[in-house]
């Protein structure tokens, strides 16, 4: 059960449909692990529906109705068999679709001896959407960012100065927060990170890499 969640602002933007696609996908993946946020999102959708219901309706003519009626045969109602709910702890369906396979099948780009990154494509031109693989006990060099960073833990866990995070936990970092996450000793950590500006390593040992870390958006 997740312990760290998106705040109400983010869930509101998600429910209203105004969150950028890459961020919405990350938040949606958190809902996969978190019943509490699912319920909150549901309430916020009910609120949206209440506003929707009270709109001043615009005239729609019979021409429109007839056009739709004429197309109904092309799209018969789908049958929805009772689908088994995915087991808690399984990789969210949305990520499985973007990955087209297992974690092991992805192309991993080695950044340091303990950190590899695999970029997934959401088509969102403003955001990088990537999986980070940190070896057990490994460290992501201390870094900051010019933009925001959303992180969701998919496997294993890591800790930084502010806490320890496990599967399903969701983190949101504002520009210029500095942190240096370290994976738990017991197992490798895989997390999803959504960025709108490249990482910037702050330690002298890794600063030379900064020019190579351009944003892989899209």
């Amino acid at each position, binding site marked *: 059960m997740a312990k760290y969640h998106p705040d109400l602002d983010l869930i509101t933007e998600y429910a209203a449909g105004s*969150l950028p696609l890459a961020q919405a996908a990350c938040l949606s993946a958190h809902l996969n692990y978190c019943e*509490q946020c699912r*319920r909150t999102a*549901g309430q916020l959708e009910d609120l949206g*529906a209440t506003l929707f219901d009270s709109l001043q309706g615009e005239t729609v003519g019979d021409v429109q109705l007839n056009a739709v009626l004429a197309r109904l045969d092309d799209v018969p*109602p789908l049958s929805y068999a009772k689908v088994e*709910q995915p087991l808690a702890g399984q990789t969210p369906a949305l990520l499985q679709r973007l990955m087209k396979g297992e974690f092991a099948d992805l192309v991993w780009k080695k950044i340091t001896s303990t950190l590899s990154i695999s970029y997934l494509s959401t088509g*969102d031109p403003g955001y990088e959407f990537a999986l980070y693989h940190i070896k057990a006990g490994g460290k992501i060099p201390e870094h900051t960012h010019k933009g925001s960073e959303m992180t969701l833990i998919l496997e294993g866990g890591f800790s930084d100065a502010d806490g320890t995070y496990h599967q399903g936990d969701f983190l949101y970092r504002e520009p210029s927060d500095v942190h240096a996450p370290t994976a738990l000793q017991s197992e490798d950590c895989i997390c999803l990170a959504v960025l709108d500006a490249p990482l910037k390593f702050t330690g002298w040992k890794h600063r030379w890499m900064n020019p190579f870390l351009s944003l892989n958006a899209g």
Partner: protein
Amino acid sequence: MSEHTETPKNDWQTPTGRRTDEWSECLTLISQKEDRAAFTRLFRHFAPLIKAFALSGSNLSATVADELVQETMLKVWQKSGAFNPEKAAASTWVYTIARNCRTDMFRRLNKFDTPLAGDDVYPDQEAEEPFSQLQSRRSREHVREMMQELPPDQAQILAKVYMEGKSHAEAAGELDLPLGTVKSRVRLALQKLQIHMENYSYG
């Protein structure tokens, strides 16, 4: 019902969480019998709302708005089997379809090519326990009642965020307000509507 003498204020009739209002019935008739008369009733009610939703705060033409009406209503027809009156109110269900179709349409108009459709990002809600069904029903009623009493500045922000699909930052820009003010108005409104999260740590 026997122990209640007063008329219920809302359209919920039984304590089991079964929703028996007209629009839920229409959706059930569509999924079970492909009932076109029921679909027509649903269309006459929701199509004008969808069109208003399409036109609010965007520069979509009336033609594109009509397209959104058609697309949304076709999806409603097609997906009616996924509607579960025990899980969702009919209007919420239709609203979420319209929201997803609108997002997809914006992306298409902007030639934004993505492997994800709106439906992928908003998975169908899982079945809830009867207890939380009761809770969400109560919260929905509360939201409807309290909405009337929100101060205009808070109601205006909610409308911008939801009906116009603006992010908090965009809403701040258009209303010429600091982002912090927009966020706190949204929060105050949600507080009054009793939408909050308990025992929370923000990551």
